[in-house]
Protein backbone atom coordinates (compact mmCIF):
# COMPACT_ATOMS: atom_id res chain seq x y z
CA UNK A 1 0.00 0.00 0.00
CA UNK A 2 2.82 2.41 0.84
CA UNK A 3 4.35 1.60 -2.55
CA UNK A 4 1.07 2.73 -4.10
CA UNK A 5 1.12 6.05 -2.21
CA UNK A 6 4.78 6.61 -3.11
CA UNK A 7 3.79 5.93 -6.71
CA UNK A 8 1.12 8.63 -6.65
CA UNK A 9 3.58 11.06 -5.07
CA UNK A 10 6.11 10.33 -7.80
CA UNK A 11 3.58 10.96 -10.56
CA UNK A 12 2.36 14.20 -8.98
CA UNK A 13 5.92 15.44 -8.37
CA UNK A 14 6.41 15.63 -12.13
CA UNK A 15 9.69 13.67 -12.23
CA UNK A 16 11.03 14.56 -15.72
CA UNK A 17 12.43 11.08 -16.34
CA UNK A 18 9.02 9.51 -15.81
CA UNK A 19 7.55 11.70 -18.52
CA UNK A 20 10.50 11.20 -20.84
CA UNK A 21 9.98 7.43 -20.59
CA UNK A 22 6.25 7.85 -21.20
CA UNK A 23 7.01 9.94 -24.29
CA UNK A 24 9.39 7.29 -25.68
CA UNK A 25 6.73 4.62 -25.12
CA UNK A 26 4.04 6.59 -26.92
CA UNK A 27 6.40 7.62 -29.71
CA UNK A 28 7.61 4.09 -30.44
CA UNK A 29 4.17 2.50 -30.29
CA UNK A 30 2.43 5.20 -32.35
CA UNK A 31 5.16 5.09 -34.99
CA UNK A 32 4.85 1.29 -35.17
CA UNK A 33 1.07 1.55 -35.40
CA UNK A 34 1.39 4.10 -38.20
CA UNK A 35 3.71 1.90 -40.24
CA UNK A 36 1.51 -1.14 -39.58
CA UNK A 37 -1.56 0.84 -40.70
CA UNK A 38 0.06 2.11 -43.89
CA UNK A 39 1.03 -1.45 -44.84
CA UNK A 40 -1.80 -3.34 -43.16
CA UNK A 41 -4.88 -1.60 -44.60
CA UNK A 42 -3.95 -2.23 -48.27
CA UNK A 43 -2.74 -5.73 -47.37
CA UNK A 44 -6.03 -6.60 -45.66
CA UNK A 45 -7.97 -5.11 -48.58
CA UNK A 46 -5.95 -7.10 -51.10
CA UNK A 47 -6.38 -10.31 -49.11
CA UNK A 48 -10.14 -9.73 -48.94
CA UNK A 49 -10.18 -9.83 -52.73
CA UNK A 50 -7.64 -12.61 -53.21
CA UNK A 51 -9.32 -15.67 -54.64
CA UNK A 52 -8.40 -19.33 -54.91
CA UNK A 53 -6.15 -21.52 -52.81
CA UNK A 54 -3.36 -18.94 -52.65
CA UNK A 55 -5.77 -16.32 -51.33
CA UNK A 56 -7.10 -18.67 -48.68
CA UNK A 57 -3.59 -19.67 -47.66
CA UNK A 58 -2.46 -16.04 -47.40
CA UNK A 59 -5.49 -15.22 -45.21
CA UNK A 60 -4.74 -18.17 -42.97
CA UNK A 61 -1.11 -17.07 -42.61
CA UNK A 62 -1.96 -13.49 -41.70
CA UNK A 63 -4.49 -14.68 -39.11
CA UNK A 64 -1.90 -17.05 -37.65
CA UNK A 65 0.71 -14.32 -37.40
CA UNK A 66 -1.54 -12.31 -35.06
CA UNK A 67 -0.45 -14.79 -32.39
CA UNK A 68 3.32 -14.21 -32.86
CA UNK A 69 4.90 -14.19 -29.40
CA UNK A 70 6.62 -10.86 -28.67
CA UNK A 71 9.81 -12.51 -27.40
CA UNK A 72 10.16 -14.55 -30.59
CA UNK A 73 9.83 -11.40 -32.69
CA UNK A 74 12.44 -9.80 -30.42
CA UNK A 75 14.80 -12.75 -30.74
CA UNK A 76 14.51 -13.17 -34.52
CA UNK A 77 14.93 -9.46 -35.18
CA UNK A 78 17.88 -9.38 -32.79
CA UNK A 79 19.71 -11.84 -35.05
CA UNK A 80 18.70 -9.90 -38.15
CA UNK A 81 19.73 -6.48 -36.77
CA UNK A 82 22.80 -7.61 -34.79
CA UNK A 83 26.11 -6.23 -36.06
CA UNK A 84 26.98 -9.67 -37.47
CA UNK A 85 23.46 -10.25 -38.82
CA UNK A 86 22.22 -9.58 -42.37
CA UNK A 87 21.03 -6.04 -41.58
CA UNK A 88 23.80 -5.23 -39.09
CA UNK A 89 25.19 -2.53 -41.38
CA UNK A 90 22.08 -0.42 -40.70
CA UNK A 91 23.25 -0.02 -37.09
CA UNK A 92 19.70 -0.22 -35.77
CA UNK A 93 20.03 -2.63 -32.84
CA UNK A 94 19.43 -1.00 -29.44
CA UNK A 95 17.77 2.09 -30.90
CA UNK A 96 14.19 3.31 -30.90
CA UNK A 97 14.08 2.52 -34.60
CA UNK A 98 14.73 -1.17 -33.83
CA UNK A 99 11.88 -1.15 -31.31
CA UNK A 100 9.61 0.43 -33.91
CA UNK A 101 10.52 -2.29 -36.40
CA UNK A 102 9.74 -5.00 -33.83
CA UNK A 103 6.42 -3.50 -32.81
CA UNK A 104 5.45 -2.96 -36.45
CA UNK A 105 5.96 -6.67 -37.07
CA UNK A 106 3.68 -7.36 -34.11
CA UNK A 107 0.96 -4.88 -35.13
CA UNK A 108 0.88 -5.53 -38.87
CA UNK A 109 -0.86 -8.96 -38.80
CA UNK A 110 -3.54 -7.60 -36.46
CA UNK A 111 -4.28 -4.60 -38.67
CA UNK A 112 -4.24 -6.67 -41.88
CA UNK A 113 -6.23 -9.64 -40.55
CA UNK A 114 -8.95 -7.52 -38.95
CA UNK A 115 -9.18 -5.23 -41.99
CA UNK A 116 -9.65 -8.37 -44.06
CA UNK A 117 -12.48 -9.50 -41.79
CA UNK A 118 -14.05 -6.02 -41.75
CA UNK A 119 -14.17 -5.85 -45.55
CA UNK A 120 -15.39 -9.44 -45.94
CA UNK A 121 -18.27 -8.66 -43.61
CA UNK A 122 -19.48 -5.68 -45.63
CA UNK A 123 -22.83 -6.28 -47.34
CA UNK A 124 -22.52 -7.35 -51.01
CA UNK A 125 -24.46 -4.20 -51.93
CA UNK A 126 -21.48 -2.05 -50.98
CA UNK A 127 -19.25 -3.80 -53.54
CA UNK A 128 -21.95 -3.65 -56.21
CA UNK A 129 -22.54 0.06 -55.69
CA UNK A 130 -18.82 0.75 -55.94
CA UNK A 131 -18.65 -1.29 -59.12
CA UNK A 132 -21.68 0.37 -60.80
CA UNK A 133 -20.31 3.82 -59.98
CA UNK A 134 -17.30 2.84 -62.05
CA UNK A 135 -14.85 3.88 -59.34
CA UNK A 136 -11.13 3.35 -59.83
CA UNK A 137 -9.14 1.00 -57.64
CA UNK A 138 -8.03 3.69 -55.17
CA UNK A 139 -11.51 5.11 -54.81
CA UNK A 140 -13.01 1.67 -54.20
CA UNK A 141 -10.37 1.08 -51.47
CA UNK A 142 -11.37 4.38 -49.84
CA UNK A 143 -15.08 3.52 -49.99
CA UNK A 144 -14.50 0.10 -48.42
CA UNK A 145 -12.38 1.59 -45.63
CA UNK A 146 -15.12 4.10 -44.95
CA UNK A 147 -17.81 1.45 -44.90
CA UNK A 148 -15.80 -0.77 -42.59
CA UNK A 149 -14.43 2.02 -40.42
CA UNK A 150 -15.90 0.90 -37.11
CA UNK A 151 -14.28 -2.51 -37.31
CA UNK A 152 -11.05 -1.04 -38.70
CA UNK A 153 -10.68 1.55 -35.94
CA UNK A 154 -11.30 -1.19 -33.45
CA UNK A 155 -8.51 -3.18 -35.15
CA UNK A 156 -6.10 -0.24 -34.83
CA UNK A 157 -7.03 0.11 -31.18
CA UNK A 158 -6.29 -3.55 -30.57
CA UNK A 159 -2.96 -3.30 -32.41
CA UNK A 160 -2.00 -0.25 -30.34
CA UNK A 161 -2.85 -2.02 -27.10
CA UNK A 162 -0.73 -4.99 -28.19
CA UNK A 163 2.42 -2.97 -28.90
CA UNK A 164 2.06 -0.31 -26.19
CA UNK A 165 1.89 -2.93 -23.45
CA UNK A 166 4.41 -5.47 -24.79
CA UNK A 167 7.77 -6.07 -23.15
CA UNK A 168 9.58 -8.83 -25.07
CA UNK A 169 10.47 -7.07 -28.31
CA UNK A 170 11.01 -3.71 -26.58
CA UNK A 171 13.64 -5.03 -24.17
CA UNK A 172 15.42 -7.35 -26.61
CA UNK A 173 15.66 -4.81 -29.45
CA UNK A 174 15.91 -1.63 -27.39
CA UNK A 175 18.18 -2.90 -24.63
CA UNK A 176 16.50 -0.73 -21.99
CA UNK A 177 19.11 2.04 -22.35
CA UNK A 178 18.50 4.94 -20.01
CA UNK A 179 17.23 8.11 -21.71
CA UNK A 180 17.20 6.31 -25.03
CA UNK A 181 15.21 3.10 -25.29
CA UNK A 182 13.56 2.83 -21.89
CA UNK A 183 9.81 2.46 -22.21
CA UNK A 184 7.14 2.10 -19.55
CA UNK A 185 7.17 -1.70 -19.77
CA UNK A 186 10.95 -2.14 -19.77
CA UNK A 187 11.41 0.23 -16.84
CA UNK A 188 8.66 -1.40 -14.81
CA UNK A 189 10.51 -4.70 -15.14
CA UNK A 190 13.87 -3.04 -14.36
CA UNK A 191 12.73 -0.98 -11.37
CA UNK A 192 11.11 -4.06 -9.88
CA UNK A 193 14.38 -6.00 -10.16
CA UNK A 194 16.23 -3.05 -8.59
CA UNK A 195 13.83 -3.13 -5.69
CA UNK A 196 12.31 0.28 -6.44
CA UNK A 197 8.71 -0.82 -6.28
CA UNK A 198 7.27 2.69 -5.93
CA UNK A 199 8.77 3.68 -9.24
CA UNK A 200 7.62 0.47 -10.90
CA UNK A 201 4.12 1.05 -9.56
CA UNK A 202 4.07 4.70 -10.69
CA UNK A 203 5.03 3.75 -14.22
CA UNK A 204 2.53 0.89 -14.13
CA UNK A 205 -0.23 3.34 -13.22
CA UNK A 206 0.74 5.62 -16.10
CA UNK A 207 0.77 2.65 -18.48
CA UNK A 208 -2.68 1.52 -17.41
CA UNK A 209 -4.16 5.01 -17.46
CA UNK A 210 -2.88 5.74 -20.98
CA UNK A 211 -3.94 2.34 -22.32
CA UNK A 212 -7.44 2.74 -20.88
CA UNK A 213 -7.78 6.42 -21.80
CA UNK A 214 -6.86 5.78 -25.43
CA UNK A 215 -9.45 3.02 -25.60
CA UNK A 216 -12.15 5.07 -23.93
CA UNK A 217 -11.37 8.14 -26.03
CA UNK A 218 -11.39 6.34 -29.34
CA UNK A 219 -14.43 4.34 -28.33
CA UNK A 220 -16.55 7.34 -27.38
CA UNK A 221 -15.50 9.28 -30.47
CA UNK A 222 -15.77 6.61 -33.17
CA UNK A 223 -17.15 3.36 -31.86
CA UNK A 224 -20.12 4.42 -29.73
CA UNK A 225 -23.26 2.43 -30.47
CA UNK A 226 -26.05 4.57 -31.86
CA UNK A 227 -28.56 5.31 -29.09
Amino acid at each position, binding site marked *: MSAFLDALRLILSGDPEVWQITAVSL*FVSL*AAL*TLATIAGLPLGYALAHARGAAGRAASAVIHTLTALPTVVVGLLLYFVLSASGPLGWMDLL*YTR*AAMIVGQTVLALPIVAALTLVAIQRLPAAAFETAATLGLGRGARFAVMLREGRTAI*ISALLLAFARVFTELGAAVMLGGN*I*RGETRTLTTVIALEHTKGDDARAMALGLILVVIALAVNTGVHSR*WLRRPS
Partner: protein
Amino acid sequence: MKRLFCAMAAALAAVAGCTARPATLRIATTTSVESSGLLETLVPAFQKEHGVTLQAIAVGSGQAFQLGRRGDVALLLTHEPAGERALFNEGLVRYYRKLMFNRFVIAGPVGDPAGAAGAASASDAMARIARGSAPFVSRGDESGTHVRERQLWKSAGIQPQPARLIETGQGMAPTLRVAAERQGYVLTDEATLARLANAVNLRVIYQDGPDLLNTYAIVILTTAPADSRGAAETFARWMTEGAGRDVIDRFRIGGRQVFFGWPAGGDNASPESMPAAVRGR
Protein backbone atom coordinates in the same frame (compact mmCIF):
# COMPACT_ATOMS: atom_id res chain seq x y z
CA MET B 1 -10.98 8.93 -38.81
CA LYS B 2 -9.14 11.62 -40.77
CA ARG B 3 -7.89 13.14 -37.55
CA LEU B 4 -6.64 9.75 -36.42
CA PHE B 5 -4.57 9.46 -39.60
CA CYS B 6 -3.20 12.98 -39.15
CA ALA B 7 -1.96 12.08 -35.68
CA MET B 8 -0.33 8.96 -37.07
CA ALA B 9 1.34 10.85 -39.88
CA ALA B 10 2.83 13.24 -37.34
CA ALA B 11 4.20 10.29 -35.39
CA LEU B 12 5.73 8.86 -38.54
CA ALA B 13 7.44 12.14 -39.35
CA ALA B 14 9.07 12.01 -35.95
CA VAL B 15 10.52 8.55 -36.67
CA ALA B 16 12.92 10.09 -39.15
CA GLY B 17 14.53 12.11 -36.37
CA CYS B 18 14.97 9.23 -33.98
CA THR B 19 17.85 7.42 -35.64
CA ALA B 20 20.38 10.23 -35.40
CA ARG B 21 22.67 9.67 -32.41
CA PRO B 22 25.16 11.96 -30.70
CA ALA B 23 28.59 10.67 -29.60
CA THR B 24 27.71 7.48 -27.79
CA LEU B 25 29.53 4.42 -26.56
CA ARG B 26 27.54 1.21 -26.26
CA ILE B 27 28.72 -1.22 -23.63
CA ALA B 28 27.45 -4.42 -22.00
CA THR B 29 27.68 -4.58 -18.23
CA THR B 30 26.99 -7.30 -15.73
CA THR B 31 23.63 -6.78 -14.03
CA SER B 32 25.17 -6.01 -10.62
CA VAL B 33 26.81 -2.85 -11.98
CA GLU B 34 23.41 -1.66 -13.16
CA SER B 35 21.14 -2.90 -10.35
CA SER B 36 23.53 -1.65 -7.63
CA GLY B 37 23.19 1.88 -9.02
CA LEU B 38 26.93 2.26 -9.80
CA LEU B 39 26.23 2.67 -13.51
CA GLU B 40 23.91 5.61 -12.87
CA THR B 41 26.76 7.49 -11.21
CA LEU B 42 29.37 6.55 -13.83
CA VAL B 43 27.33 7.66 -16.85
CA PRO B 44 27.00 11.39 -15.99
CA ALA B 45 30.59 11.58 -14.68
CA PHE B 46 32.04 10.18 -17.90
CA GLN B 47 29.73 12.31 -20.04
CA LYS B 48 30.81 15.44 -18.19
CA GLU B 49 34.50 14.76 -18.64
CA HIS B 50 34.58 13.34 -22.16
CA GLY B 51 31.29 14.40 -23.76
CA VAL B 52 30.46 10.81 -24.66
CA THR B 53 27.13 9.28 -23.65
CA LEU B 54 27.35 5.74 -22.32
CA GLN B 55 24.61 3.41 -23.45
CA ALA B 56 24.69 0.37 -21.23
CA ILE B 57 22.94 -2.93 -21.84
CA ALA B 58 22.73 -4.75 -18.50
CA VAL B 59 22.96 -8.51 -18.98
CA GLY B 60 24.59 -11.56 -17.37
CA SER B 61 28.28 -12.04 -18.18
CA GLY B 62 27.49 -15.01 -20.48
CA GLN B 63 25.23 -12.87 -22.65
CA ALA B 64 27.70 -9.98 -22.50
CA PHE B 65 30.37 -12.23 -24.07
CA GLN B 66 27.92 -13.08 -26.86
CA LEU B 67 27.07 -9.42 -27.52
CA GLY B 68 30.81 -8.71 -27.64
CA ARG B 69 31.59 -11.58 -30.02
CA ARG B 70 28.84 -10.43 -32.38
CA GLY B 71 30.12 -6.86 -32.33
CA ASP B 72 26.91 -5.43 -30.87
CA VAL B 73 28.76 -3.58 -28.10
CA ALA B 74 32.17 -1.91 -28.00
CA LEU B 75 33.21 -2.82 -24.47
CA LEU B 76 32.36 -5.39 -21.80
CA LEU B 77 32.27 -5.02 -18.05
CA THR B 78 32.12 -8.59 -16.75
CA HIS B 79 32.98 -10.67 -13.68
CA GLU B 80 33.51 -14.17 -14.98
CA PRO B 81 37.26 -15.00 -15.19
CA ALA B 82 36.80 -18.41 -16.87
CA GLY B 83 34.66 -16.92 -19.64
CA GLU B 84 37.14 -14.04 -20.03
CA ARG B 85 39.94 -16.61 -20.36
CA ALA B 86 37.93 -18.27 -23.14
CA LEU B 87 37.89 -14.94 -25.02
CA PHE B 88 41.69 -14.82 -24.72
CA ASN B 89 41.93 -18.38 -26.05
CA GLU B 90 39.77 -17.42 -29.01
CA GLY B 91 42.22 -14.59 -29.74
CA LEU B 92 39.48 -11.97 -29.47
CA VAL B 93 40.88 -9.76 -26.69
CA ARG B 94 42.20 -6.35 -27.67
CA TYR B 95 42.34 -4.79 -24.20
CA TYR B 96 41.94 -6.36 -20.77
CA ARG B 97 42.23 -4.85 -17.29
CA LYS B 98 40.89 -5.81 -13.92
CA LEU B 99 38.82 -2.89 -12.70
CA MET B 100 37.48 -3.55 -9.24
CA PHE B 101 36.51 -6.27 -6.83
CA ASN B 102 34.15 -7.14 -4.03
CA ARG B 103 32.81 -10.33 -2.57
CA PHE B 104 30.24 -12.88 -3.36
CA VAL B 105 28.32 -13.75 -0.24
CA ILE B 106 26.15 -16.73 0.59
CA ALA B 107 22.86 -15.28 1.85
CA GLY B 108 19.98 -17.18 3.37
CA PRO B 109 17.11 -17.29 5.83
CA VAL B 110 17.71 -15.40 9.06
CA GLY B 111 17.45 -18.63 11.09
CA ASP B 112 20.12 -20.42 8.97
CA PRO B 113 18.42 -23.86 9.13
CA ALA B 114 21.40 -25.57 7.44
CA GLY B 115 23.88 -24.17 9.96
CA ALA B 116 26.06 -22.87 7.12
CA ALA B 117 27.29 -19.84 9.10
CA GLY B 118 29.63 -22.04 11.15
CA ALA B 119 31.26 -23.58 8.07
CA ALA B 120 35.04 -23.81 7.69
CA SER B 121 35.05 -22.62 4.05
CA ALA B 122 32.72 -21.47 1.31
CA SER B 123 32.53 -24.96 -0.18
CA ASP B 124 31.84 -26.41 3.27
CA ALA B 125 28.99 -23.89 3.62
CA MET B 126 27.60 -24.99 0.25
CA ALA B 127 27.90 -28.67 1.27
CA ARG B 128 25.96 -27.99 4.45
CA ILE B 129 23.26 -26.24 2.42
CA ALA B 130 23.14 -29.17 -0.03
CA ARG B 131 22.60 -31.62 2.83
CA GLY B 132 20.00 -29.44 4.57
CA SER B 133 16.30 -29.14 3.81
CA ALA B 134 16.01 -25.47 2.75
CA PRO B 135 16.06 -24.78 -1.01
CA PHE B 136 18.96 -23.15 -2.88
CA VAL B 137 17.99 -20.51 -5.44
CA SER B 138 20.25 -20.36 -8.48
CA ARG B 139 20.54 -17.74 -11.24
CA GLY B 140 20.75 -20.53 -13.82
CA ASP B 141 21.67 -18.00 -16.52
CA GLU B 142 25.41 -18.48 -17.23
CA SER B 143 26.12 -15.21 -15.45
CA GLY B 144 29.37 -14.72 -13.55
CA THR B 145 27.52 -15.45 -10.32
CA HIS B 146 26.02 -18.64 -11.73
CA VAL B 147 29.40 -19.85 -12.98
CA ARG B 148 30.90 -19.22 -9.54
CA GLU B 149 28.04 -21.11 -7.93
CA ARG B 150 28.74 -24.15 -10.10
CA GLN B 151 32.45 -23.99 -9.20
CA LEU B 152 31.50 -23.97 -5.52
CA TRP B 153 29.21 -27.02 -5.94
CA LYS B 154 32.07 -28.79 -7.67
CA SER B 155 34.52 -28.13 -4.87
CA ALA B 156 31.83 -28.99 -2.29
CA GLY B 157 31.46 -32.39 -4.00
CA ILE B 158 27.70 -32.42 -3.44
CA GLN B 159 24.64 -30.64 -4.87
CA PRO B 160 21.14 -30.15 -3.48
CA GLN B 161 18.45 -32.57 -4.65
CA PRO B 162 16.93 -31.21 -7.91
CA ALA B 163 13.66 -30.53 -6.10
CA ARG B 164 15.47 -28.15 -3.75
CA LEU B 165 17.49 -26.38 -6.46
CA ILE B 166 15.39 -23.56 -7.88
CA GLU B 167 16.68 -21.96 -11.09
CA THR B 168 15.25 -18.52 -11.80
CA GLY B 169 16.99 -17.78 -15.11
CA GLN B 170 16.85 -14.08 -14.15
CA GLY B 171 19.14 -11.31 -12.89
CA MET B 172 20.52 -11.07 -9.36
CA ALA B 173 17.78 -8.91 -7.87
CA PRO B 174 14.79 -11.03 -8.99
CA THR B 175 16.71 -14.11 -7.86
CA LEU B 176 17.15 -12.57 -4.39
CA ARG B 177 13.44 -11.91 -4.28
CA VAL B 178 12.67 -15.53 -5.09
CA ALA B 179 15.15 -16.68 -2.44
CA ALA B 180 13.47 -14.47 0.15
CA GLU B 181 9.98 -15.66 -0.78
CA ARG B 182 11.00 -19.34 -0.66
CA GLN B 183 13.28 -18.81 2.37
CA GLY B 184 16.18 -20.39 0.52
CA TYR B 185 19.92 -19.88 0.28
CA VAL B 186 21.47 -17.95 -2.60
CA LEU B 187 24.89 -16.90 -3.87
CA THR B 188 24.92 -13.16 -4.58
CA ASP B 189 27.30 -10.26 -5.11
CA GLU B 190 27.35 -8.04 -2.04
CA ALA B 191 26.36 -4.90 -3.96
CA THR B 192 22.99 -6.18 -5.15
CA LEU B 193 22.23 -7.67 -1.74
CA ALA B 194 23.01 -4.31 -0.10
CA ARG B 195 20.74 -2.54 -2.56
CA LEU B 196 17.84 -4.87 -1.84
CA ALA B 197 18.47 -5.13 1.91
CA ASN B 198 15.16 -3.44 2.71
CA ALA B 199 13.14 -5.39 0.18
CA VAL B 200 14.23 -8.94 0.95
CA ASN B 201 14.24 -10.85 4.22
CA LEU B 202 17.66 -12.51 3.92
CA ARG B 203 20.92 -12.15 5.80
CA VAL B 204 24.57 -12.77 5.01
CA ILE B 205 25.36 -16.35 6.06
CA TYR B 206 28.94 -16.80 4.84
CA GLN B 207 31.43 -14.44 3.22
CA ASP B 208 35.01 -15.50 3.99
CA GLY B 209 37.84 -16.90 1.94
CA PRO B 210 39.37 -16.51 -1.51
CA ASP B 211 36.66 -18.68 -3.15
CA LEU B 212 34.20 -15.81 -2.77
CA LEU B 213 36.33 -13.04 -4.23
CA ASN B 214 34.44 -11.34 -7.09
CA THR B 215 36.61 -9.52 -9.64
CA TYR B 216 35.31 -7.23 -12.38
CA ALA B 217 37.18 -6.66 -15.62
CA ILE B 218 36.98 -4.28 -18.57
CA VAL B 219 37.35 -6.05 -21.90
CA ILE B 220 37.55 -4.63 -25.42
CA LEU B 221 37.31 -7.25 -28.16
CA THR B 222 38.73 -7.21 -31.66
CA THR B 223 35.13 -7.45 -32.88
CA ALA B 224 34.25 -4.01 -31.39
CA PRO B 225 32.71 -1.67 -33.99
CA ALA B 226 35.60 0.25 -35.59
CA ASP B 227 33.99 3.67 -35.13
CA SER B 228 33.73 3.34 -31.36
CA ARG B 229 37.13 1.80 -30.54
CA GLY B 230 38.61 5.17 -29.64
CA ALA B 231 35.77 6.00 -27.25
CA ALA B 232 35.96 2.48 -25.77
CA GLU B 233 39.67 2.89 -25.00
CA THR B 234 39.08 6.34 -23.53
CA PHE B 235 36.41 4.89 -21.25
CA ALA B 236 38.61 1.92 -20.26
CA ARG B 237 41.51 4.22 -19.30
CA TRP B 238 39.17 6.61 -17.48
CA MET B 239 37.83 3.70 -15.44
CA THR B 240 41.13 2.01 -14.60
CA GLU B 241 43.50 5.00 -14.28
CA GLY B 242 41.40 8.15 -14.41
CA ALA B 243 38.57 9.77 -12.49
CA GLY B 244 36.37 6.67 -12.91
CA ARG B 245 38.40 5.02 -10.14
CA ASP B 246 37.31 7.67 -7.66
CA VAL B 247 33.67 7.31 -8.70
CA ILE B 248 33.94 3.57 -7.92
CA ASP B 249 35.67 4.09 -4.57
CA ARG B 250 33.29 6.85 -3.48
CA PHE B 251 30.15 4.89 -4.41
CA ARG B 252 28.10 3.85 -1.37
CA ILE B 253 24.89 1.93 -0.77
CA GLY B 254 23.33 2.84 2.58
CA GLY B 255 26.69 4.23 3.71
CA ARG B 256 28.59 1.04 2.75
CA GLN B 257 31.32 0.72 0.17
CA VAL B 258 30.43 -2.20 -2.10
CA PHE B 259 32.95 -1.90 -4.97
CA PHE B 260 36.70 -1.53 -4.41
CA GLY B 261 38.96 -0.13 -7.12
CA TRP B 262 41.77 -2.49 -8.16
CA PRO B 263 44.93 -1.76 -6.13
CA ALA B 264 47.15 0.62 -8.15
CA GLY B 265 50.29 -1.03 -9.47
CA GLY B 266 48.93 -4.53 -8.79
CA ASP B 267 48.73 -7.28 -11.40
CA ASN B 268 45.61 -6.50 -13.39
CA ALA B 269 46.28 -7.90 -16.85
CA SER B 270 44.81 -11.39 -16.82
CA PRO B 271 41.53 -13.07 -15.82
CA GLU B 272 43.43 -14.92 -13.08
CA SER B 273 44.81 -11.74 -11.46
CA MET B 274 43.92 -11.26 -7.83
CA PRO B 275 44.04 -8.01 -5.85
CA ALA B 276 47.29 -8.09 -3.80
CA ALA B 277 45.76 -7.15 -0.48
CA VAL B 278 42.51 -9.06 0.00
CA ARG B 279 40.85 -7.10 2.71
CA GLY B 280 39.48 -8.87 5.77
CA ARG B 281 36.29 -8.03 7.56
